[in-house]
């Protein structure tokens, strides 16, 4: 399978088409995009191979393998920081973007028109002053439900495709929330895990209440990225760091959706919190992970062990990969 890996950095989007060995940016004169733009989000959709959406400080952009360059997508978000992008798994024309300040913008026509959702996220928050969207998830079972995490505000859910939203934080030790993963069992039970600044939390009542997980193996409290290599998998990988941005971090892996955890094997010392883990259903054994300070790790055994690639980039905010 031929694939590309993509890294969103504070100096544009970096591409690797040789399994992570080498990384390059597009040329500014031909790439359609300033090479020192700050990029927080890169997003692909399985129905649009070769396309990549990028959230930046200059607006929203779409890269195409056909043209080999970025196209600017006019939107109301040009003056905001576009931190998160998601597309409905069943409809790539339905795009949801999350920004700093904490706002949600929705397009139902592939970016042609945008609506600013009536998301009542905090307008000011402790410590980081300005709230921001840290993850967006389409509910695996209910197409009308969208979940987001906002730091610093909590878990926020819409059950009508983004028209109305409710804050669901009961039981969270900390509403500095970062990421979510979902496990739906055949008997109808559901478990959701949420990463926060103060550990991982679990909900068994669809987010109505949360309970902090006890994970003695975790060296630190700061949980950032949560990922399942495959949708609805029991396997969960969690990134943990000493703090944001941090000076150390590691990855934990659970084979039973958060009941027990092991420490992943890392080939090198991790230089800061692992900010992002990239998965793709096309190959659930292949994952990339990136520290906020530029290290890239790759796993080919579904996250058990990770090898650092030689190339380091600047500040990495998100990493992902997709077949092309």
């Amino acid at each position, binding site marked *: 399978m031929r694939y590309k890996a993509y890294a969103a950095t504070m100096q544009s989007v970096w591409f690797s088409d040789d399994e992570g060995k080498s990384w390059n940016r597009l040329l*500014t*004169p*031909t*790439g*359609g*995009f*300033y090479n020192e733009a700050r990029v927080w989000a890169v997003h692909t959709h399985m129905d649009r191979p070769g396309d990549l959406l990028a959230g930046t400080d*200059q*607006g929203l952009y779409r890269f195409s393998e056909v*043209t080999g*360059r*970025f*196209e*600017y997508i*006019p*939107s*109301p978000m*040009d003056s905001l920081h576009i931190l998160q992008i998601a597309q409905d798994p069943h409809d790539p024309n339905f795009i949801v973007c999350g920004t700093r300040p904490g706002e949600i913008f929705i397009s139902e026509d592939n970016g042609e*028109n*945008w609506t*600013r959702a*009536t998301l*009542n*996220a*905090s*307008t*000011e*928050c*402790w*410590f980081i002053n300005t*709230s921001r969207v840290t993850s967006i998830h389409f509910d695996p079972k209910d197409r009308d439900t969208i979940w987001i995490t906002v730091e*610093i*505000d*909590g878990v926020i859910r819409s059950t009508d495709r983004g028209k109305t939203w409710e804050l669901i*934080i009961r039981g*969270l*030790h*900390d*509403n*500095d929330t970062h990421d979510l993963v979902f496990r739906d069992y055949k008997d109808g039970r559901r478990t959701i895990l949420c990463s926060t*600044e*103060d550990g991982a939390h679990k909900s068994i009542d669809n987010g109505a209440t949360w309970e902090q997980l006890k994970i003695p193996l975790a060296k630190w409290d700061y949980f950032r990225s949560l990922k399942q290599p495959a949708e609805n998998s029991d396997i969960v990988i969690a990134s943990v760091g000493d703090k944001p941005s941090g000076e150390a971090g590691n990855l934990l892996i659970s084979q039973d959706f958060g009941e027990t955890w092991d420490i992943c094997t890392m080939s090198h010392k991790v230089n800061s919190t692992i900010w992002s883990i990239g998965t793709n259903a096309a190959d659930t054994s292949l994952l990339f992970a990136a520290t906020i300070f530029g290290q890239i790790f790759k796993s080919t055994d579904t996250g058990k062990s990770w090898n650092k690639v030689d190339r380091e980039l600047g500040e990495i905010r998100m990493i992902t990969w997709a077949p092309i």
Partner: protein
Amino acid sequence: MSLFLFKPHIEGPEGNITTPDVVIDRVFVNGVPKSINLVNTESYHEVDESDLAYPAYGIIALGGGALISPAVIIGSERICLSRMAWRLNNLNENVGAVTLNGISLSALKLPANLIEAAGGVGDTLPRGYLLICVASETSTHATLVDPTLKRELRHRLKLSLISEDRWGGVRPLPRYSVGPMMKDIPHFI
């Protein structure tokens, strides 16, 4: 001291896109100087019911050759410039065939005439200049079509009424969110 930082995406004749950031600090609409603070590149605007929108095109001074961009003028004030642009020197002799919303630029005012009136020559005009030529037909979009290279640039405004509130009658109060709820923390407010 006011300025507008224009961040165009300039499409070349072979599809390349260059992205220089340009400081604009002098703007003329149909030859009349206007405040640079009226210039924007937003696609989404709030308007009064009585506001009319007019298609236009803009000529922007730039080192590698002046740019041409579609624009929309709201009322007599707001100058809404697209971030998409071509270079005039890629159009050359064909510029008269370029249309704005179906109207030939030669039937409006050719870029060369605008530039000449502003003290420039050919595709060169004074640094920091933006020249706007406005059509008389009303429209919320401006589309430049280059029939020679078979390409187009479109700037489409999405308008909502000032009287409308997206929250309806239930606009909430601003919220301050506390971080670690289970810890004693210092507040900085």
